[in-house]
């Protein structure tokens, strides 16, 4: 086992004996800014955990008479925010690949909702992850991670390209900036709250 640095008081959940842990997902394709986003608002140094995933091969290996296996590693990173005496919020960043069903289920189960980071220059790369989010019935907002800093030129075109519902929030954000990332997260939570109120 790799020895970890010893932990300080601030590494532990502040009111762990009474707080309810909740989570929000930060999803999007590779290099869209998930890790940067989580790092800019997390109160802990963002952590990574890996899961080794295996898959039995389609065919039985004739010589050995056993199914061979393919192994791959999927990583997710996450951060934490103490919300109140009662709630601690975790942010989980994941590319959300369709094929890792089991892992995706672990991540998605019980999530309050998802913030989908998109790069306006690579919209097609976001289709898969948005499909997946919808498939799991998660509510989401879109954060356009604007790499060149100019305002989003054409929100209507983006909505159309991503086939969004009219009330799905779209915000622009600079994932490197704490305030900007927090604003995007706040937009998502306000939307989730509106939804929860409608459902009552």
């Amino acid at each position, binding site marked *: *086992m790799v020895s970890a640095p010893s932990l300080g008081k601030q*590494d*532990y959940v502040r009111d762990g004996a009474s707080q309810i842990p909740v989570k929000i997902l930060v999803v999007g394709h590779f290099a869209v800014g998930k890790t940067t986003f989580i790092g800019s608002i997390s109160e802990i140094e963002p952590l990574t955990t890996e*899961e080794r995933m*295996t898959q039995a091969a389609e065919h039985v290996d004739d010589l050995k008479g056993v199914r061979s296996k393919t192994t791959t590693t999927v990583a997710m990173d996450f951060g934490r925010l103490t*919300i109140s005496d009662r709630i601690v919020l975790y942010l989980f960043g994941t590319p959300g690949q369709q094929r890792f069903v089991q892992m995706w289920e*672990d991540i998605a189960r019980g999530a309050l909702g998802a913030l989908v980071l998109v790069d306006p220059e690579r919209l097609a790369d976001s289709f898969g992850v948005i499909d997946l989010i919808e498939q799991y019935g998660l509510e989401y907002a879109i954060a356009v991670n604007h790499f060149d800093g100019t305002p989003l030129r054409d929100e209507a075109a983006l909505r159309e390209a991503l086939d969004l519902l009219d009330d799905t929030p779209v915000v622009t954000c600079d994932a490197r900036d704490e305030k900007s990332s927090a604003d995007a997260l706040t937009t998502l939570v306000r939307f989730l709250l509106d939804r929860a109120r409608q459902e009552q």
Partner: protein
Amino acid sequence: MTGRDEWEPEAAELVRPYVITKGRGLPDEEQLSLITLVTVAPEEGQRPTRLSPEEQRLIDMCSAGYLSVAEIAGHTRLPLGVVKILLAALAEGGYLITRSPVRRAALADREILEEVLNGLRAKFG
């Protein structure tokens, strides 16, 4: 899209994780989720111990407060599946206690979201 081709988290497949986990299987998600909070049980010191170094290390790590399952995996750099198996066994043995997010049902989603929204506003303005 290749779709559902049955990728499974690997827990006890490789030799070393197999030894570490003593061949136990993965606990289910309800029991130990990514955000289940874990700490040592109050009377931990009294038990007769025959724990592996990994188990002892997890207990040490959890002795100073609460951490989520994901954070424990992140800090130890062990694969998530291995950490879940070890934590489940230690909880079963009475060394650790776990606080599952299932309790969330006690608070309506709406209340949680209101509190999260207020918390974010207070923190980031």
